């Protein structure tokens, strides 16, 4: 885990700098916190038997880690974040920060800072006063407040806007103010509640990178909530995939993508083909399966057993196509139903005896493309497939 983030950090320093990259180390003097959630549960309303919004959540967030809570709306990710911040009281379970129990600590006493989805900038205060708000509450002398705020504003390229009202600024600028207001508090944990969802697509991609670089540079613990898997994949050290109130999987983006624990995760992250296969043999970490007229040796989820129903995950980009002389669908032969050209890739819908497959071919040459009705030999990269149980035990 730490290895990943360290290697990423060295990689980061080589990157070209931009508007957020100049954040001074003076902002980094806070010690990153360790957050532990134990048996966390939240039921809304008086009825204790109602369906919990969050249940059985156990999670350890390491100091300096960037962790993302990902899932569809209503999966409990925002509720979890709000319980960490203190805006929701857990029905059961514990929240600890550096071993201190936080359940009974009021939100204004928790050393955490949050960046809100709507930014929640105080509309009646200037940019400067917004950023200074929390420092003034700390009873910091006003000269130091001014100094700290100026530093924060300058580092975010917000210096010229210090006397503006929030509504006089663009969405991206407001976002920076919200970030500056949170960072200036030197929190032990930085909380993000879908902060990029109100930005346009291009700015969103830019801010992703900026927030991630800033977080690494300051070495601060960050919890980020989003429903956008691209955000989660590109920003996180680890992703927590949630669905209907429970954690489906906690792992690095690569592991989540390559070795999903449940069908839900496989389906939610990226695109997936699920093939029905015959399991011939199961050995340590591998299995021999029959599909598309052949036998394949594929990696498997530890939960796969001979008697349990299983499915084979094959990502669209792991499918391999080659021309064939055969003129009928069956065995390894499939037929192109449709093709779509995306520029950097081409995508096919292919009918096979194992069902219809979505296939993505990166950067094809013009003479390598196929058209609707073409018959093809269909296979896949064995090492990249993933045999997994159906109806994961966490459901």
């Amino acid at each position, binding site marked *: 885990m730490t290895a990943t983030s360290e290697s990423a950090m060295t990689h980061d320093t080589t990157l070209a700098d931009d508007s957020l990259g100049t954040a001074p180390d003076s902002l980094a003097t806070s010690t990153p916190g360790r957050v532990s959630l134990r048996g966390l549960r939240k039921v809304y309303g008086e009825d204790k038997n109602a369906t919990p919004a969050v249940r059985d959540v156990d999670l350890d967030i390491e100091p300096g880690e960037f962790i993302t809570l990902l899932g569809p709306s209503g999966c409990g990710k925002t509720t979890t974040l709000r319980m960490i*911040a*203190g*805006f929701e009281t857990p029905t059961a379970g514990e929240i600890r920060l550096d071993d201190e129990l936080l359940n009974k600590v*009021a*939100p*204004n*006493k*928790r050393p*955490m*800072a*949050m960046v*809100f*989805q*709507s*930014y*929640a*900038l*105080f*509309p*009646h205060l200037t940019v400067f006063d917004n950023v200074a*708000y*929390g420092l003034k*509450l*700390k009873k910091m002398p006003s000269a130091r407040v001014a100094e700290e705020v100026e530093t924060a504003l300058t580092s975010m390229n917000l210096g010229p806007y210090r006397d503006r*009202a*929030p*509504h006089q600024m663009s969405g991206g600028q*407001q976002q920076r103010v919200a970030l500056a*207001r949170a960072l200036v*508090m030197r929190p032990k944990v930085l909380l993000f509640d879908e902060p990029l969802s*109100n930005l346009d697509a291009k700015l969103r991609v830019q801010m992703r990178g900026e927030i991630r670089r800033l977080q690494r540079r300051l070495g601060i613990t960050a919890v980020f909530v989003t429903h956008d898997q691209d955000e989660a994949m590109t920003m996180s050290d680890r992703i927590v995939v949630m669905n209907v109130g429970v954690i489906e999987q906690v792992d690095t983006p690569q592991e989540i993508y390559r070795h999903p624990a449940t069908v839900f995760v496989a389906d939610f992250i990226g695109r997936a083909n699920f093939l029905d296969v015959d399991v011939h043999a199961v050995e340590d970490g591998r299995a021999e399966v029959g599909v598309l007229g052949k036998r394949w040796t594929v990696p498997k989820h530890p939960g796969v057993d001979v008697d349990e129903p299983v499915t084979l995950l094959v990502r669209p980009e792991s499918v391999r196509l080659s021309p064939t002389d055969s003129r009928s669908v069956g065995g390894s032969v499939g037929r192109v139903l449709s093709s779509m050209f995306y520029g950097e890739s081409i995508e096919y819908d292919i009918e096979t005896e194992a069902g219809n497959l979505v296939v993505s071919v990166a950067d094809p040459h013009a003479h390598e493309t196929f058209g609707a009705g073409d018959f093809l030999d269909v296979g896949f990269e064995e090492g990249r497939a993933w045999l997994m149980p159906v109806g994961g035990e966490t459901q």
Partner: protein
Amino acid sequence: MTATLLPAAADPVGVGASPPRPRRRRSGRDLTLVTLVTVVSVLLFVIVGLPLLRILTVAFSPEGWEIVSSMLTNPVNRRILWNTVQLGVVVALLGTFVGFVMAYAQVRLKFRGKKVLHLISLMPIVSPPFAVATAAITMFGRNGIVSNKLFGLEIDIYGLKGLVFVLTLSFFPVAYMNLKGMLESLDPSLDEAAANLGASKLKIFTSVTLPMLVPGIAGSFLLLFVESIADLANPLVLGGDYTVLASRAYLAVTGEYNVAGGAAYSLVLLVPALSVFLVQRYWVSRKNVVTVTGKPSGTPELITAPALRVPILSLAVLVAGLVVLMYATVIFGGFVKIFGVNNDFTLAHYRFVLAGIGSDAMFTTTILALIATPIAGLLGMLIAWLVVSKLKRTSGLMDFVGMLGLSVPGTVIGIGYAIAFNTPTIFAGRQWFPAVAGGSAILGGAMAIVMVFVARSLPSGQRAGISALQQINPAIDEASTSLGASSFTTFRKVTLPLIRPALLSGLTYAFARSMTTLSPIVFITTPQTKIMTSQILAEVDAGRFGNAFAYCAILIVIVLGFIGLLNLAMLHPSIRGIQRR
């Protein structure tokens, strides 16, 4: 945007997306629109413009101007002016405070019985004038049941004290509605952001909630100020020696038959009322900072901390208790001989109103209000629609004139009507119209009363309509036009159904306001056309409180009954239309 449109408009073949609307408007081909604007303008001119113009001409005549110019030099007049301002400021301060307490309790505190408190806070809106004043005299006057019988006090309720008490109880709902709406639209994440940055509950209140409400508080203050200086009913009943401009103007016209004097005092009343209206519209509304980023997400956590909850709730309960006491007095007082003196049960008062001499006024008022309500509702919606989506440069003017009926004090409107319509309208040596107001007028003066009802009640519909229309995407309107509908067809088939809720509230307000308006009515009511509110005044003047209570109670029942029927009708599928959301 303009850069992309211009070449398209210059495109001779018209293949580019040439905007159809500006072209159409410039050539003036949409005749229905021109007709509509003309009709609405003429109507507005007749029901508000003309009476105001006549007031001004009389006030600026030599006799009128003499009184206007003596406002500061003549000690009596100076006293009246000072009284008016003093009353306005005190009531505005207290009423805004009470309204804020009620709104804060309603939106932010956790307690049982919120709905009840809300309904109690709204009760004074549907109440006729005099109800609170008469009840206050009965309860807290010199021989008041509470003040004297219970505590043995001799309180002189007549004058500033009583007026402040009664006006605050009557007008705080305006501030309540205003501030409640604002509190509800505050983004709860602002509170969370403040808490997240280390602010305590109290600190959040003083550093976030309160500053954000400043425009609403200022707006409520101004509205209450105008309402209280414009009020005529309560100063007549409770004023005693405490004369204000409105009651002075009334005395001039009805007691001294001095129309010029009435016009002069009206002018003096008109200036602050209109300035406040202008300030409120063009300054306070611009300072509004509530919605800046995004829409409010989630609901704020309700406050349970006793430090805030106990004092605010106690105050809210006290106010609610007073309101309930006032209306209980009205209801109970109608069923006893003389409440507090002779508490024997009697139905004489209700018999008087329902079956006796009083029934005449009850029927006339209800019928005239029923005539005025749809006119005011539709006219209000029509003006709103013209202002929001049809007119360009003149939209501000039409909006302003439409709102005059409410922003001009009723006393001023009434005197204006008396001057303008008591005699036939003669212009350029020709009679254009017979007298419509006064005893010798056509229809016994009923027409002028309907006109006043419409003028007084269309602004609320207009306001509701404008805010509803501003939320409708203009493309919907354009779609209808591009499919071949004329402006009026678009209004009838597309716009009106979309703003149905606004129309409903417009009609509700129109009826309630028509039934309860007094100040303009007392100047134009006639023996043939008796109006309930002015009948109540007569009963109160004669000391027959029982009859007044019965009148008030029945008036409230009629208004609530109408609102109930209207809501019921709107629930019917054929009227409600497609269920949205």
